[in-house]
């Protein structure tokens, strides 16, 4: 099937120079909070690099001033200096690692919480649009690629760059003539590095995509394993996976092949320049244009010229992907929050009437779903929304809970427009129980506690008791502490919905919206639940969406939503008597109950 489908490299992994600049500027902006520590980290890194460059110079000093001139004092001086240098190097390296980790990890932690907070406060419209997997990968793989950079990439990258620059300068200072000659090899290395950098970035993006494909294939093969077995398709799915897996292998090898021609070139260039340094340098010594110590220092330094080149071109991918990740994270942070608190948002009393006035709504990029809906729900009233699939019942309910803001008209709680109420305050007054009883990993009790984390054990039991199903859950092997397993697979479909309903009982809101909250529960249990909830619902406004008309029958009023409009409104009996849409829906429902009724 199609899970190995993202062919070609995806997304905005390639940033232009301007984009990269913007990302970096912004990062520095965020990092300002840690400026002191950051400057210290960079300072230590520079110091450390300098100590690395010092070694060959001391060897040169020892040879030229000490050995060649037969002055053991100078030699000893070089040795002592070297010892000092080694310890400075040790200390600066050590503190550079610690300091950088401190700054980097703090930055990452802030980034994680900041991005997640942003995610949490996005409106439902945002979650409709974005795929869950992509959002999760922002918080995981994108942040991880930054973490990787901080844990070792950054030190390597900075010091490789510094070392490359420092070595080049030093070599020129030692002997610019010899260095110019050695630079003959440079165009070859530069061209190779350039090509490598480009090719390997391409290959790397491809590998990334294939890994994602393989992993999602693995993921889908695991989460869909029951369906696969139900249709006896294990062998076909395995073969398909094998294909994706093989694609991954091929892209891996393509990436390796690129390294396999590049690394030898750099290695060879190193040997070749050493040969030049030895040959030409030796000749210059014989002409007395150079000391032997200089050649030695030259040869020793040359190796620190090519290693960094090699490192840099490999690290470039890491840096590039981290920049791309940062860019994606910033894009997420810049996303406007559609349902946000207005300044001076107020707290409202949920035990007030709900007024829906001239409300129209369309989902982003979709046609109108609701138009011109007027409805008054008194405080403490129970209203059922019924109507055909896609009529807009759930949408209307979501507007009342302010998952979305209406595109026309207004909804008021008491006298206050929903948009003027703080989102947090509103959510504690209005609770929605959705149809799919989504369970988190953890025990039954933990899942109920989602509604009110500080609730005590007794309160959790009480919540179950208030919907009349406490006994059912107490008899589970570990009682309320029974693990529900992945997505609640340990429970039957109806039991999951009951857990989700118990959350509502625990939350104890003033307005309760039940969006087909008992669709998988047998009508008998449903009746028990509804009876038990009578007391719970006393004095509360309840909006119930149900396809089972037994529920609407028990409500004070029924609102029939059809084609995005409020088609009928009245008590069950009135509507049945009126002989309209509701009456025919009801007739269909009752006919199912058998002639017995």
């Amino acid at each position, binding site marked *: 099937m199609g899970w190995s489908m993202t062919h070609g490299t995806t997304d905005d992994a390639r940033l232009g120079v301007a984009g990269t600049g913007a990302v970096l500027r912004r990062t520095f902006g965020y990092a300002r909070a840690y400026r002191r520590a950051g400057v210290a980290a960079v300072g230590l890194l520079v110091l450390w690099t300098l100590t690395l460059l010092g*070694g060959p110079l001391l060897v040169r000093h020892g040879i030229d001033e000490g050995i060649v001139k037969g002055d053991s004092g100078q030699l000893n001086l070089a040795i002592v200096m070297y010892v000092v240098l080694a310890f400075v190097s040790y200390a600066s390296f050590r503190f550079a690692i610690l300091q950088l980790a401190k700054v980097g990890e703090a930055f990452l932690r802030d980034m994680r919480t900041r991005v997640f907070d942003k995610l949490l406060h996005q409106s439902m419209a945002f979650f409709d649009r974005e795929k869950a997997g992509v959002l999760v990968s922002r918080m995981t793989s994108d942040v991880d690629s930054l973490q990787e950079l901080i844990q070792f990439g950054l030190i390597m990258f900075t010091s490789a760059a510094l070392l490359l620059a420092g070595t080049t300068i030093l070599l020129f200072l030692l002997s610019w003539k010899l260095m110019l000659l050695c630079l003959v090899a440079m165009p070859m290395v530069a061209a190779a590095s350039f090509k490598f950098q480009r090719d390997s970035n391409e290959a790397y993006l491809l590998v990334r995509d294939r890994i994602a494909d393989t992993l999602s294939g693995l993921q889908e093969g695991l989460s869909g394993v029951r369906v696969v077995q139900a249709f006896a398709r294990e062998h076909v799915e395995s073969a398909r996976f094998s294909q994706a897996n093989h694609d991954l292998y091929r892209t891996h090898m393509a990436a390796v092949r690129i390294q396999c021609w590049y690394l030898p070139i750099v290695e060879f260039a190193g040997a070749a320049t050493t040969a030049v340094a030895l040959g030409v340098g030796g000749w210059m010594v014989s002409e007395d244009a150079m000391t032997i110590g200089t050649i030695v220092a030259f040869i020793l330094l040359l190796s620190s010229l090519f290693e960094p080149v090699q490192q840099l071109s490999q690290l470039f991918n890491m840096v590039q992907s981290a920049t791309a990740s940062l860019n994606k994270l910033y894009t997420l942070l810049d996303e406007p929050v559609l349902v946000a608190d207005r300044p001076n948002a107020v707290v409202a009393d949920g035990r007030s009437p709900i007024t829906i006035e001239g409300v129209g709504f369309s989902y982003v990029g979709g046609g109108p779903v609701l138009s011109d809906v007027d409805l008054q729900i008194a405080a403490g009233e129970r209203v059922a929304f019924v109507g055909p699939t896609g009529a807009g019942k759930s949408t209307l309910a979501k507007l009342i809970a302010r998952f979305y803001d209406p595109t026309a008209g207004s909804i008021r709680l008491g006298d206050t427009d929903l948009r003027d109420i703080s989102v947090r305050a509103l959510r504690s007054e209005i609770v929605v129980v959705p149809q799919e009883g989504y369970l988190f990993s953890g025990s039954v009790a933990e899942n109920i506690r989602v509604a009110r984390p500080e609730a005590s054990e007794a309160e959790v039991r009480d919540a179950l008791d208030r919907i009349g199903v406490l006994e059912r859950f107490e008899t589970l092997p570990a009682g309320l502490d029974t693990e529900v397993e992945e997505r609640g697979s340990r429970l039957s479909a109806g039991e999951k919905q009951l857990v989700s309903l118990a959350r509502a009982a625990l939350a104890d809101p003033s307005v309760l919206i039940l969006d087909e909250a008992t669709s998988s529960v047998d009508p008998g249990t449903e009746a028990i639940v509804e009876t038990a909830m009578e007391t719970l619902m006393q004095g509360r406004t309840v909006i119930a969406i149900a396809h089972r008309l037994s529920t609407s029958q028990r409500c004070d009023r029924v609102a029939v939503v059809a084609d995005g409009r409020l088609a009928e409104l009245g008590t069950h009996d009135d509507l049945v008597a009126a002989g309209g849409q509701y009456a025919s829906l009801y007739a269909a429902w009752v006919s199912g109950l058998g002639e017995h009724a």
Partner: protein
Amino acid sequence: MTHWTRIWLDEPVCACEVGARKGAVTLTMMTPGARQDKGDRLRSSADGVHGSSRRGWSLIATTAREEWVGIALGMLAGLLYTAGRVAVPLLIQLGLDRGVQEGGPLLPWSLAIVGAGLFSATFLGFRRYLAFRNARIIEARLRDRIFAHVQRLHFSFHDANATGELMSRGNTDLQHFQNFVTLVPLTFGNFLIVVTVTIIMLILQPLLALLALASLPLVNVLGRKFAQELNPAIMRVQQESAELATVVEESVSGVRVVKGFGSEPVQAEKLANEADDVHDAALASSAIRARYLPGMELLPSIGLITVLGYGGHLVLDGEMTVGELVSFNIYVIMLIQPLRMLGMIVANGQRASAAGVRIAEVLETAPAITDPATPTPLPRTGALGRVELRNVDFDYHPGATGAGVLRGLSLTIEPGESVALVGPTGSGKSTIARLLPRFYEADGGSIMIDGVDIQKIQRRELRKAVSIVFEETFLFSSSIRDNIAFADPEADLDAVVGAAALAGADEFIRELPEGYDTEIGERGFSLSGGQRQRIAIARAILADPRVLVLDDATSAVDPTKEHEIRDALGEVMERRTTIVIAHRPATIALADRVVLLVEGCIVASGTHEELLASSSRYREVLAADRDAEDGGAV
């Protein structure tokens, strides 16, 4: 001087590889927390391996043996690379001494260095290629095996092991494994370098060699301790990151619940805690780096200082040449990397063997539900689709407290009959459905399809004969057409459309942007619950089974639509045995017979009307009394 740059690369072998590996969508989600022990649950966790690591090593050995030619070639390449590499400092030394100092010809030495460089560079490429090739082949092969194996494992195994847990075995563990296999030929080359360089140095200047090398074994020791401490620290970072990922994943997929209860602050706090944990774990691993890396740097410097100090005086005393001094310098540097890697390979090997155990655990789990040795074919003629359950006992966790989910259940369904299974939530309706295709094995009693015990039927044949529409709809990320044609990908479009029409799905599918080719699933178009259910029904219809089980398959479909589906289903039901699990009277009434299930036992059976009339328990389950009261007036 050059040694520093490689330090960091020791960990991941190559930064680029690691980037690619970690850059992938992290789908690994581990379920933290203690869990009850259960027969099917894999024993090892991410931070501890159950039992001896010998299983891990033997997995490494057997998989490596399959690639022995490649590994041998890789080692040969490593040998040649070493030869070239070790020669260069010697040539520099000779050039400096014979050429520069003694004024001899320089060109031959320069050319020789170029030659040696070309040689070592060439084999550097080969060595790298072979090392990765072997490792990647082994990785791909093992991943194939894991996938194919897991696909065949029974339902209770999957109940007990979360997707995230299995993902981490098929991914993270495999990476550790692959990493180690890559290192094997590289290690061999490193070992050679250490031996030859030591010998050369000893031959050149025995005493200086001993002094210069004295501190280097410590590099090896430090390298080993470093890896031993770093690996668990990295594992902890990964574990903490996985926990953080779980919070994110659950908040995003459960966003309706989170928003519905206004629990954003709670989730935010959970995440802040996890972020703190990751932060602390990462700092701890950095502290380990800070403790070891500078030390591993310092030790070689001591060697270099010894070379300059003692060696310098030897040169002054005329007992050694400048060239030798330089080549010693270079050799000491050349030794650092291999020594450190040799130290680390031990710890990496331990990590790989732990990963190997976790992989082997999966591969060694035998499928509990296997094909019989001598399968009995299902009859092909006559009235087909007779289902018979005789005295069936079943519990998901046999031996646990409680009375069992199904208790001595007997039920016979005649060919072509349609039966509605009705019962309160948790009474075992779905469980019966899962037993028929042998997703779980009954603990007692027997189940027969067309007179053949299902344990005697080949699984493929059985599952082609019995199709289930699960109460929780799972669709694949793929086109609608592929999803419907899942049972028979060869099916032509007419067959797909036919099945969709019978499931009441054709109409809405045609209205989608790309009709039957619309991609659905995580990366595609999102459908409503009712629409998804209808596609799942179409998928089962296309499979054309002799027994069709619909487990609450229309719960999200509204009554008017359900009406249409019902009419269509009537046609489907006519031709086969059908078991319908439903709560809605209208759907139930469609069946020839209704069976009432309470707490795993059948308490009544008859037509809908009969039961309504005769069984008070039935009326209770359907809440019919109340409806009759309230709605009786109509």
